């Protein structure tokens, strides 16, 4: 007797499709590669001169550069292939027509959404933590070479320090949430082009807008922005330009965006013909 098409079978079917599409591998490799490469570029470019104004360089505790954040900043660009990954996971099946076979096999359509969301979270979380751990480990020696040493007021930070470990894991969680957001938007628009434009606009738009906004609106926009709030987990030093939200609360904001996208996607998936 055939087993019922439960969530575990939806997961396995999703996984087979996920790993057998070449673009998936490429986008994950690109996500890791861009994150590490851009993180290292930031580390090579930054110097200790950018400390707190009026503070003599070299005095202990004086510099306020965030060595953890700088080595993880690559995620600001590395998230782009991850967005493409999430969107394409949703839209490719509509473009090729396989979505009809998928839904015929899994008539409870929200299971397909849940299975794909689970897959994305698992894969991107691993890739994202790997990318940020590598960024951190390769970036720190470069920063040391640029003068970020204890004598200049910058204690050596290890990957096992709670703040650094939290920032690295948090960056991985952020990337997974953004992938889910992208997947949800892809399910809603069913078009790769528009979904990618919408998600990238949603991520980068508030950051550009907040350059001109004045208080208190600036703070509100930053706190509500999936990218600015979500990546606040990378901050380990008090700085004037920090997004005014705690790291975990910021990830909560990103998670809320992802959740809204998935709930809306499940609703649309059930209501519309394919």
């Amino acid at each position, binding site marked *: 007797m055939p087993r019922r098409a439960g969530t575990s079978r939806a997961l396995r079917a999703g996984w087979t499709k996920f790993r057998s599409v070449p673009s998936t591998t490429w986008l994950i490799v690109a996500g890791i590669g861009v994150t590490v490469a851009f993180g290292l570029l930031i580390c090579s*470019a930054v110097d200790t001169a950018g400390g707190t104004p009026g503070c003599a360089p070299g005095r202990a505790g004086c510099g306020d550069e965030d060595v953890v954040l700088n080595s993880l900043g690559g995620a600001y660009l590395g998230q782009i292939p991850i967005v493409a990954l999430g969107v394409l996971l949703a839209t490719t099946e509509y473009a090729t027509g396989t979505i009809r076979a998928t839904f015929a096999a899994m008539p409870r359509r929200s299971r397909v959404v849940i299975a794909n969301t689970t897959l994305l979270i698992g894969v991107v979380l691993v890739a994202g933590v790997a990318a940020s751990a590598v960024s951190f480990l390769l970036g720190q020696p470069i920063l040391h070479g640029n003068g970020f040493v204890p004598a200049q007021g910058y204690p050596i930070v290890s990957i096992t320090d709670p703040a650094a470990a939290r920032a690295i894991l948090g960056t991985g969680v952020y990337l997974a949430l953004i992938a889910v957001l992208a997947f949800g938007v892809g399910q809603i628009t069913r*078009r*790769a*082009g528009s979904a990618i434009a919408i998600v990238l606009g949603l991520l980068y738009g508030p950051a550009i807008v907040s350059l001109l906004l004045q208080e208190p609106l600036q703070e509100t926009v930053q706190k509500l922005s999936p990218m600015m709030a979500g990546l606040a987990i990378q901050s380990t030093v008090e700085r004037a330009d920090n997004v005014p939200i705690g790291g975990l609360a910021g990830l909560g904001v990103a998670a809320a965006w992802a959740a809204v996208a998935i709930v809306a996607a499940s609703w649309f998936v059930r209501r519309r013909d394919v």
Partner: protein
Amino acid sequence: MSAIARRAVTAEWTKLRSMPSTTWTALAVVGITVGLTAFMASTSSTDANQAGGLPGDDDVVANALFGVWLGQVAMVALGALAATSEFATGTIRATLSAIPRRGVAFGAKVTIVAGIAFAIGAVTSVASFLVAQPLQHGNGYNAPAYPHVSLTDPLVLRAVVGTALYLTLLALFAMGVAAIVRHTAAATTVAVTLVLAPTVVLGFFTGTIREVLQWLSPVAGMSIQVTRDRFDNPPYGPWVGLGLTAAWAIGALLVGAWLWRRRDA
């Protein structure tokens, strides 16, 4: 224009205007730009200065066109779709059978996209400027620090018309990228990233690298909106900035046209 070129342009016009996505993206360009500008103008005030800003140096013209920072995303999508949708549906084979001279077919597409993008851009920037004016006046942007400006002032005209040109160049840039990769998702990702990401990651850099990034960014053309000396202005003048965006557009179109002629459809 030869008869065949004229007919090619007519054909492209019919195709582009009958695509629902053209209407949607056009509405999005105008709507997002004007909406964001109105939001910014209605929440602006003359007393709050950004870090390093001098009192009274807000650029009311640039601020009245600020919404373009987001509206341009829809313009990029329009340009990309104009080039890739025929490859997605397969109609490109009918198009190239009807117009076997591929250079003519590509040139016709470029002409139509340029025309439509400029029309959308002009409506967008004029509407954005006009909507912002009364909101700025209401928030204290008045003489003596902020004498009122009008659409016919030379600097305003340069900013408003220049913004329309800038949006046209961006659509052509996206079209060139799309002709190169021939895939909507890839073209949109590349083009949107290039117009949004440089501004965001600029914050990580100081000194030479920052300046190099500013010179290399396709959004350099936004400098055409500058009408006042400010600490955060880019390190080049308005027309040089627009020229940088034009270089991106021309570069992408040349490579796109070359590949368009060389590859099978």
